């Protein structure tokens, strides 16, 4: 045997192993982005206040034109400025980076920006950027984006560097100011963002295209985000009270709970299970903070592909409606509330949560406060449905909290125990879910809603106006007209009456079936203060200190 050759080869192997490690040391393994602002110093030096936040939410994209979900908007709220905004603890709209914002005629809404605004990259923030931000929303009209919120916007006009005029399609839009604080309205840098297509997260971060309370100084998609205070922000929220906020994404809410109770993170927001919250309420190391309950949970029916839907082989509108109504008769909201959510979510009998103008428990009136197999049987029989209905019901495991699995298992049980339904439950991870729900894939599916602004309209128009975000092929001309009318009705009582009427109509059609509403909940370390959960449903990191 050639021992010398063996020895040489062994040495070669060892050298190769060392070489691999050296090469690994010299190569970059990540395409994730570092910003030029903040940068290394932000992580390396001990800042006066650094807050660590954990969430199970996920980002779809931080391009405002490409996402319309809570996880993405939670990030956008920290990094982009708005024309109008609300201050922590207050849901009232006030100018953010604007000096003034008001109707200058029935069809014109004029905003005057503060002078000398700049993005963190040094680019000027002018009226041209404002027009660019809204024009690209309309032009891109991404299906996953919020562009439909601009349904009443005809055009945006730049008057001078600080003045912009929104020309509306209908007069006296009572909601338009609120829309300027919604997910469709972050102001972006026209020198970084693409005018006609989505801009990648990496390009946005690399371009440092931020002008909100923070810039992003480190970003790993759905793993972590580091926000560093932007001293150049001149908006109504003021400069952030902390220097740095680190946001960590969790795949498993049990790990989120463990980390907040062990003090590894300062704040856990969205979403801990009901049992976790119940458990943490008795823990002295943390504080459970609750805010107004504007979040709702509901089932969406796709009018095309639900049983007897318009594009199915056995299409029959009457039978399809009967199926939806039978589900409404059979679902036991009280049981879901108490058994699954331990009272952290309450039964919702209306389309608008209690407390907002026009909220009415119309579903209780129409379908009863308790489940009724007899009524469900009758409505199906009257429509000519004689066979057991097979319903494919989709739910999501990672966006609406870990209790979703129990919630939908219970719904399946409630429907099947009647003998009228055979329910096939299927789950899909959020990034895919958000896409597929729009693609006529789910006959019936779970959704939740976190309002964009505190107005009854936000629980109606986005859902039931033709072309809304549900994309479930529901279209009722009478509802459409009422939805458009109420938005421009200046008289409050008259507007509320229209809102009530709209709910009566959609309760009969059942495009969606509201199930629950719940409070906002966050869990913070005992030494943390400034966590404000208000009716704006925007959690601002800038007020959190410890």
């Amino acid at each position, binding site marked *: 045997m*050639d021992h010398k050759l063996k020895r040489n080869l062994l040495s070669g192997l060892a050298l190769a192993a060392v070489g691999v490690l050296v090469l*690994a040391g010299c190569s970059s393994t990540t395409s994730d982005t570092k910003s030029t602002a903040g940068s290394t110093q932000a992580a390396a030096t001990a800042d006066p206040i650094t807050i660590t936040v954990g969430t199970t939410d996920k980002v779809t994209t931080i391009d405002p034109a490409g996402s319309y979900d809570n996880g993405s908007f939670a990030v956008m709220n920290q990094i982009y400025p708005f024309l109008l905004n609300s201050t922590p603890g207050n849901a009232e709209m006030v100018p953010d980076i604007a000096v003034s914002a008001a109707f200058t005629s029935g069809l014109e809404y004029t905003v005057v920006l503060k002078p000398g605004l700049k993005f963190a990259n040094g680019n000027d923030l002018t009226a041209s950027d404002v027009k660019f931000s809204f024009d690209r929303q309309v032009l891109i009209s991404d299906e996953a984006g919020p562009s439909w919120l601009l349904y009443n916007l005809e055009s945006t006009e730049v008057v001078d560097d600080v003045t912009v005029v929104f020309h509306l399609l209908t007069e006296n839009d009572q909601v338009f100011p609120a829309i300027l604080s919604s997910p469709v309205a972050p102001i972006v840098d026209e020198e970084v963002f693409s005018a006609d297509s989505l801009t990648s997260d990496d390009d946005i971060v690399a371009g440092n295209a931020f002008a909100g309370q923070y810039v992003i100084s480190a970003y790993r998609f759905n793993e972590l985000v580091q926000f560093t205070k932007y001293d150049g922000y001149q908006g109504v929220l003021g400069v952030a009270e902390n220097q740095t906020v680190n946001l960590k994404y969790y795949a498993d809410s049990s790990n989120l709970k463990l980390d907040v109770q062990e003090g590894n993170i300062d704040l856990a927001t969205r979403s801990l299970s009901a049992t976790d919250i119940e458990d943490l309420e008795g823990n002295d190391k943390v504080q459970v903070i609750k805010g107004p309950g504007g979040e709702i949970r509901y089932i969406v029916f796709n009018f095309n592909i639900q049983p007897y839907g318009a594009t199915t082989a056995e299409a029959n509108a009457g039978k399809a409606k009967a199926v939806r109504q039978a589900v409404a008769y059979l679902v036991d909201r009280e049981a879901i509330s108490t058994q699954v959510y331990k009272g952290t979510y309450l039964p919702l009998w209306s389309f608008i949560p209690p407390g907002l103008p026009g909220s009415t428990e119309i579903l209780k009136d129409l379908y009863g406060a308790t489940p009724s197999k007899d009524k469900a049987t009758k409505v199906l029989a009257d429509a000519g449905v004689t066979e057991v209905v097979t319903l494919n019901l989709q739910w999501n495991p990672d966006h609406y909290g870990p209790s979703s699995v129990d919630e939908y298992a219970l719904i399946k049980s409630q429907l099947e125990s009647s003998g009228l339904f055979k329910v096939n439950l299927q789950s*899909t991870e959020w990034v895919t879910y958000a896409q597929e729900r729009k693609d*006529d894939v789910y006959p019936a599916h779970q959704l939740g809603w976190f309002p964009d602004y505190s107005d009854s309209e936000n629980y109606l128009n986005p859902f039931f106006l033709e072309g809304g975000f549900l994309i479930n092929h529901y279209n009722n001309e009478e509802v459409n007209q009422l939805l458009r009318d109420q938005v421009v009705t200046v008289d409050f009582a008259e507007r509320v009456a229209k809102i009530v009427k709209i709910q009566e109509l959609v309760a009969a059609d059942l495009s969606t079936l509201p199930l629950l509403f719940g409070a906002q909940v966050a869990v913070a370390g005992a030494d943390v203060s400034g966590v404000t959960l208000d009716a704006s449903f925007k959690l601002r990191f800038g007020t959190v200190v410890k």
Partner: protein
Amino acid sequence: MATKTKGGSSLLRYLGVRFLLIFPTVLILVTMVFLVMRTIGDPITAALGGKLSNAELAIRISAAGYDRPIFIQYFEYLGQVFTGDFGSTLTTNKPITGLLATYGMATLELVIYALIVAFLVGIPLGMLAAKRRDTGVDAGLRLFAIMAYATPVFFVGLLLKLVFAVAWPILPVNGRASINTELAITLMDNPTGIYLVDAIRLGSGEMILDVLSHAILPGLALGLLTAGIFLRLVRTNMIGTLNTDYVEAARSRGVKESRLVTHHALRPALIPIITVIGMQIAVLLGGAVLTETTFEWKGLGFQLAQYLNARDYVAVQGIVALLAVIVALTNFLVDVFVALVDPRVKF
């Protein structure tokens, strides 16, 4: 001289053949992955079948090219694989090879930790069991080995989390590092992705300890799986070696029993372990999927589970094929190493 030349060329010929065998091995593995993925239909039908009308499905399948003859798709896929193109994920539109660069190092690091645990636990305990053959200690260690090997890795992980998160919260139970370390590594120039190396490069003792403390539980959960096998292998081989003539001869010369174990019996007993490592790499990569998911260790296994949840079968196919290539290459390296260190291997 002639003998040496013959021996050297035999070794080179052996290694050359082993190297060439990588290609049919990879071809078979990749073909199997392709066929297995296709037995559940095309990725579009797999994801959306039963939910879309046949017409809508057909449109999407056609657009993606899945309606072409299977052999055309197969050869196209082979062409992509052999040019290093494993495709892009459906859900996030990221190149599969990019995933390897980003997350592969995390999995490599975990596998290294697991192997360290396997060596540190399996070899000394195997030696002890051999030395105390047929005693209570031996029986206990054999039972431990069976349990370590047979207990599902996710169950071990959950038990460890229960102990170290609830009963005795002294070790972190999720992630690869605390967020400050993660950020520092993210912001450093050219991070390797192997956090321990990166922490050392940062020169921070605190970060090194942080990375190591995060590695203990995942490394233990995954490493015990292999430690059980190592323990049994070392025990069996060492018992055999301790009964060989040359050990008996040493014993008769008055060599101490402890020296016999460490100097005479251990080395030969370790050689089979090197052979087994090749196979264990596949086991460890499979176990990494569960371990990474349990401990939110964001490596290839964690991503694989995420893509499975998202029903992104293009991503799954790409990652699995890539893992198959890694296993084939690792086995080749192990063969080379065994050939070099084991005098019993004939060429």
